């Protein structure tokens, strides 16, 4: 966390840097962690769509990758995956 700004650095309540919430890693929230078995993945992109953060990256070839910096462990991806390629495991285990 950066140093807090002084009033001299502020004017109107405006955040000028678009999308800088990426600096705030919500990955620390989770108790459960999704683990994707790439060999099962059919690239349906449903997990990419349903993830609320979004914490699932969509690559050029439509394969997906979980972004653990932001994943809150909600489990939607695992619940919705049509081929059960994602398992929720306890965070900090394995």
């Amino acid at each position, binding site marked *: 966390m950066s140093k807090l700004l002084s009033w001299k650095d502020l004017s109107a309540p405006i*955040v000028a840097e678009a*999308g*800088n919430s990426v600096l705030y890693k919500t990955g620390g*929230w989770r108790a459960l962690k999704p683990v994707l078995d790439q060999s099962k993945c059919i690239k*349906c992109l449903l997990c990419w769509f349903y993830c*609320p953060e*979004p914490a699932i990256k969509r690559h050029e070839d439509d394969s997906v990758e979980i972004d653990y910096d932001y994943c809150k462990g909600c489990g939607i991806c695992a*619940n919705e995956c049509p081929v059960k390629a994602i398992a929720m495991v306890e965070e900090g285990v394995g």
Partner: protein
Amino acid sequence: MAVQIKTLREMPREELFAPGHRLCAGCGIPQLVRTALKAVPGPKVVVTATGCLEVATTIFPYTSWRVPWVHNAFENAAATAAGIEAAFKALEKKRGVKRPKVIVFGGDGGTFDIGFQALSGALERGHDLIYICYDNEAYMNTGIQRSGATPRGAATTTSPAGKVIPGKPERKKDLIAIAIAHGVRYAATLNPAYPVDMFNKIAKAASIEGPTVLHYFTPCPTGWRADPAKSIEIARLAVLTRVWPLYEYEDGVYRINVLVKSPRPIEDYLKLQGRFAHLLQPENRWMLEQLKRDVEENWNRLLKLAGLA
């Protein structure tokens, strides 16, 4: 002419909504926002009422928004948006400034209740904007208090499942009917479990000049006392039980987008949510029956309007 997709694959990749926000795990709001920012082409500005979305995505010094975003107060998103739209119309005429599309996100509180007047005025005046209500069926941000959008029977902190009154006695307001009564050319319901349908309707709304109203089913694991992993499943069941009909209205024509021929029993939908647990008790059967009647009457009404009854 609006871009319409057939598969999820065709949904644009660019994310104009960034992670790092503080919405709950399993929240149903971001799916709407991500899709809306992809489905509305060109330059855009977003106005958001006070509520979950606004609070969780813009805690200073952070913002999840990669488009211009404005928050004013709770009940005036539609009025603020009207002012922005009017300003750009004037600046476009007078100084050739490029006019962005205005998208408004309001929760059910900021839309059905405290924000109702501002919405009504903006619709009547015909401003060119897309108003999208993300409806999690209570004032969730302040701690799950009932709203005019809370369905009959649901337990909230101001309509608790008590010994004498089991949940909210009143039925849910009909936002689409209200919008249509104001003469909007396009209004539709949206649901996160139906992504392609959602994208296409938002794209269609965006292509129309004038006000359009979209009503989005927003699963809320925190407020509904549900498993966050089941948010999308609950959303799907809402459609499959006919609790949340997916339909659209365009220039006088109603179209039911997902025609549920054999609905799942409503209990399948209710039992996944703690806010309805009391309705499954025998002593509250009368309230459950009323809720079922609401759903059936609404469905039949829509069938008739769509020329299918």
